[in-house]
């Protein structure tokens, strides 16, 4: 190794050190610590003196399995991810297809408008929607009333509160994936459509045999980031319903927050966080596998 190479290596470490040590100390160590805490009974007494926490083995995880509230939170979160995820992706794709149409002008204005909810503060948006959903004075019920639909207690009905949150999430998020889909659509070579046109393929045939397959990698990426994001549902139920009515909107992260930072059952809370991590990890693996199988079939 000559002098200049050694010099370069020193420079590389100098550039890397601040960011990597920050990530190591404030991200990786906490992840490992959370793993250990999840095997302890860390609670409010341990908070004043960390050494009060004792190793309890798998107790937290076993309690979780026996905890109906945790199952409720899991069920709600899965319902939310499974409905809101595909729904928002379909809306994103439709919006992208519309905005990619050659017939449309003022594309950038529409695109900008659809994107606005994405950048706005989730908490503020949740508060706005809480009033929009107001059973007596909300504008949604007013609009439905114009069509002869009687007033609905969106957030007060255990069967409707989670769907109401899903509706808001789709509204808030579809613009993000729309942008990615537009980029994906623009990457599909024009000649494919020209050839299909020559063979007399209809719009739907082109959509089915060119657009959708060519978008597969984009769709995989979008499904994964959307799913990871949606599993972390928290702010919407926190301000719109506090998890109610009768726990119908309690999400895993909300439950984790309540256990950890409201009741200070931090060992238990860490176990919840880890279960969430494992679920996200497995779900991501499944998405990759499904994609591979699809590719093999084609």
């Amino acid at each position, binding site marked *: 190794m000559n002098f200049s190479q050694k010099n370069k*290596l020193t420079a590389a470490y100098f550039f890397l050190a601040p960011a990597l040590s920050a990530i190591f100390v404030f991200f990786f160590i906490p992840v490992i610590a959370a793993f250990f805490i999840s095997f302890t009974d860390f609670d409010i007494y341990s908070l004043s003196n960390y050494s009060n926490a004792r190793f309890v083995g798998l107790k937290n995880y076993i309690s979780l399995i026996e905890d109906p509230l945790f199952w409720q939170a899991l069920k709600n979160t899965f319902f939310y991810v499974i409905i809101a995820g595909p729904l928002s992706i379909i809306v994103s794709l439709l919006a992208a297809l519309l905005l990619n149409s050659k017939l449309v002008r003022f594309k950038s204005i529409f695109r*900008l408008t659809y994107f606005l909810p994405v950048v706005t*503060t989730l908490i503020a948006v949740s508060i706005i929607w809480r009033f929009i959903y107001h059973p007596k004075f909300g504008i949604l019920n007013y609009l439905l009333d114009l069509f002869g639909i009687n007033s609905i207690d969106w957030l007060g009905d255990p069967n409707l509160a989670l769907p109401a949150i899903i509706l808001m999430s789709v509204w808030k998020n579809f613009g993000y994936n729309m942008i990615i889909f537009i980029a994906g659509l623009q990457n599909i070579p024009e000649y494919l459509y020209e050839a299909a046109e020559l063979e007399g393929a209809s719009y739907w045939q082109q959509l089915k045999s060119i657009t959708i397959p060519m978008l597969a990698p984009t769709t995989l990426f979008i499904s994964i980031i959307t799913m990871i994001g949606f599993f972390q549902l928290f702010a919407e139920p926190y301000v719109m319903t506090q998890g109610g009515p009768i726990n119908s909107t309690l999400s895993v992260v909300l439950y984790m927050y309540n256990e950890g930072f409201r009741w200070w059952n931090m060992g238990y809370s860490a176990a919840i966080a880890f279960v969430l991590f494992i679920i996200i990890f497995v779900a991501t693996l499944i998405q990759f596998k499904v994609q591979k199988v699809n590719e093999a079939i084609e």
Partner: protein
Amino acid sequence: MIKKIILYIILIITALVTVTPFIWMISASFMTDGEASVYPPNFLPSSFFWGQYKLLFTRLNVASNFFNSLFLSLIVTIISIFLNSMAGYAFAKFKFKNRDKIFNLLLSSMIIPAQVTMLPLFLMLKNLGLINTYMAIIIPGLANIFGIFLIRQYVVSIPDSLIEAARIDGATEFQIYYKIIMPLAKPILVTLGLFTFMGVWNDFLWPLIALTDNSMYTLPVALANLMGEHTKDPELMMAGSVITIIPVIVVFLVLQRYYIKGIMMGSIKG
């Protein structure tokens, strides 16, 4: 022609659905107490009433929350731009042992939800006496993996010859980073800055955990806290939402092309 009209109708309806909540928010924020709690709802205030904003900035002291949000968003943005760009540059242009392994490890750890780190991070910062201080927000935002990835992807495309030429001219390694890489990477730095700024401004869960005093709260936490006591005051809550939302919308509108480009870059090889 008919096809075109249908297309526009769908696009316009979607646009209306998208903006109506914001228009109602702005409109209701200028209403007097109770004006937004009637049926049928008022879509416009009877007169421009500034009282809700006045109340927020006087008795409810939202000015300090606004300052906290602005200050923290800016400081985290500035620090993280430097830290992430240095690391991104190193991953893009230097050869060192296990470089690709470390980079891939970082990328795959992006799947770990931030909530996992929050309990230990809280305990760690509590031990250091940093809970309920600005540092509690700044420290976890110092560097982030997505930022490093974004910079690396961009800097990779800067020709090596530029860097080599500067070395031959006797530039120090830090000068190369600061005087050559940083100016060339400006578009991606703006993108990263924008992402970071908005991320900190909009963040809720961590500030909710790490800040415990009303005077330390960022806007979203202050707003959620206010909502607890003012569930029956939509006018006041909408004024609070306007104050929280308008700054991010303005920043976004000014720098939107950088934002959109960032999303696309993130999606290419994510």
